[in-house]
């Protein structure tokens, strides 16, 4: 978990904007602010802009999300900031992800009227994935999640491949960027828009990543090894970002 948060934090450039939810994304943005990206601006979809988060929020609309913030506004204002092209990153998750980075957070099962498991639905995910420049996904890596075919396409990745987002009417130049899992960091091949492994976490083999993935997985050249968290990152993460272990877990302390 700590490694995943560090990987996510390192992807966030200084002077950029990021729309986050609670949990890992929030921890990653807070860590980035305290390391390489001090002027990163955090947005929450319920309307919190530029908070100085005193603790981990529990809800993306709770009062922590606009604690000592620059603005407390509306959901439409935040989403329209994305729609105007001002939001660089967003972090999403889901019950299922496919090779094109499409996400399912709506249901498990085949019959929409009688789902086997009903999940929350899009929330703001479909909006953020449509309108932000770069979509980051943080998730555990297993075959139940990394599937060939989604039960429901809640949130757009590259849809069916090159050109599909633009053909659907989504703003050009937007799309999935990175997937950070407990095994690897993945990106997308320029020509196919399919997921590919960029770096393996220390001690993880490519075979293991493939065994945990339900679709064919390409590999980037050269295949790197993920840098482990530095001592400085860990201290900030454990002492400042998440001192109560809400996200990194108490056992990690």
């Amino acid at each position, binding site marked *: 978990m700590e490694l995943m948060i560090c990987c996510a934090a390192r992807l966030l450039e200084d002077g950029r904007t990021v729309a986050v939810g*609670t949990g890992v994304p929030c921890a990653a943005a807070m860590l980035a602010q305290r390391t390489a990206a001090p002027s990163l601006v955090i947005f929450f979809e319920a309307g919190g802009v530029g908070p100085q988060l005193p603790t981990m929020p529990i809800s*993306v609309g709770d009062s922590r999300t606009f604690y000592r913030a620059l603005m407390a506004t*509306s959901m439409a204002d935040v989403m329209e900031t994305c729609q105007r092209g001002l939001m660089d990153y967003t972090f999403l998750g889901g019950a299922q992800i496919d090779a094109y980075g499409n996400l399912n957070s709506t249901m498990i099962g085949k019959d929409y009227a009688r789902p086997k498991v009903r999940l929350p*639905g*899009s929330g703001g995910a479909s909006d953020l994935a449509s309108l932000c420049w770069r979509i980051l996904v943080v998730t555990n890596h297993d075959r139940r999640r990394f599937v060939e075919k989604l039960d429901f396409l809640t949130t757009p990745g590259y849809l069916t491949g090159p050109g599909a987002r633009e*053909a659907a*009417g989504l703003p050009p130049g937007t799309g999935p960027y990175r997937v950070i899992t407990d095994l690897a960091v993945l990106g997308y091949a320029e020509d196919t828009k399919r997921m590919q492994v960029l770096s393996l976490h220390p001690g993880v083999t490519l075979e293991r990543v493939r065994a945990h993935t339900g679709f064919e997985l390409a590999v980037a050249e050269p295949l790197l090894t993920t840098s482990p968290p530095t001592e400085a990152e860990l201290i900030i993460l454990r002492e400042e970002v998440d001192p109560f272990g809400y996200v990194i877990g108490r056992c990690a302390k």
Partner: protein
Amino acid sequence: MASLSQGEGPLFADPSADRARAFFAQKPRALTDKLTSVADAVRRLVQDGDYLAIGGFGGDRLPTAVCHEIVRQGKQNLTLAGHTATHDFQILAAGNLTGRGKTIARCDVAYIVGLEARGLSPHARRVVESGEVECTEWSNYGLAVRFKAAAMGLPFLPVRSMLGTDTFKQSAAREIICPFTGEKLLALPAIYPDCAAIHVHEADRYGNCRIRGTTVADLDLARAAKRLIITCERLIPNDEIRQDPSRTVIPFYCVDAVCEVPFGSYPGNMPYEYFSDERHLCEWLEAEADMERYRAFLDNYLFGVKDFNEYLERCGGLQRMQALRQEELLLHRGR
């Protein structure tokens, strides 16, 4: 040019701006005293079969007392705007599959069943997975825009979201072509809810409201709704409103009832007032796991109390509220 498609889901709310105008033409707009009890407001303003929308963000600035009262009065066959619906959906779902008929019959879904980081509600899942709630899919921004279209007095607004997804396929949205640029856009039909309930920090007896913190979709929702119930932490004198009208975010002419409900967002968070009661929310989630236990839980907290104050008493009363106030203000962290 690619052919245009449309969602296959049912449309639950009439987007007609003309029919909304006909309604608003006869809506009272005089500056009159609207102070009443939650029980009276719900009895008069929420009708069986209504399209209902709840303000706030699920467990944040939630009009809890109105949600409780709707279930306690056994309102039936409602269509719900499932916009960031977390604890509100959970409360209303207590009127489904518990031997009290069917409170939620249809839902425009953007976010339901879950309570964010707290997990999924077992009972809300039971209710939706049973098939007794007819659903149409949207997104959070999608529903916010649908309220915005209504607040603008329009039948629809276009967005660049939901395109290319199953969310769109299961919605009732329609692809359109921009008449100026030729780009494909998604047209979202306006929602003019029959009734909405919003919890605010302060209101006067006429319904002029002040909110601190994020407004989520509430400023548009207040203007979109045909009937609006306001619950407020504190009733304030009209003179205070007049001294700083720039702070009025919902005007009296949108409002049909004003109810003073201190700690009215409990067990949700009320910004600058009190934090969410995670202990109680967790207890609620755990009780839902078993139907017998859940019935007993509801009898104790919801059906067995006469009003919201009695619910607060059963949840620990003033002592608990004091602790949550300290938590909200971070006093428990030595601030």
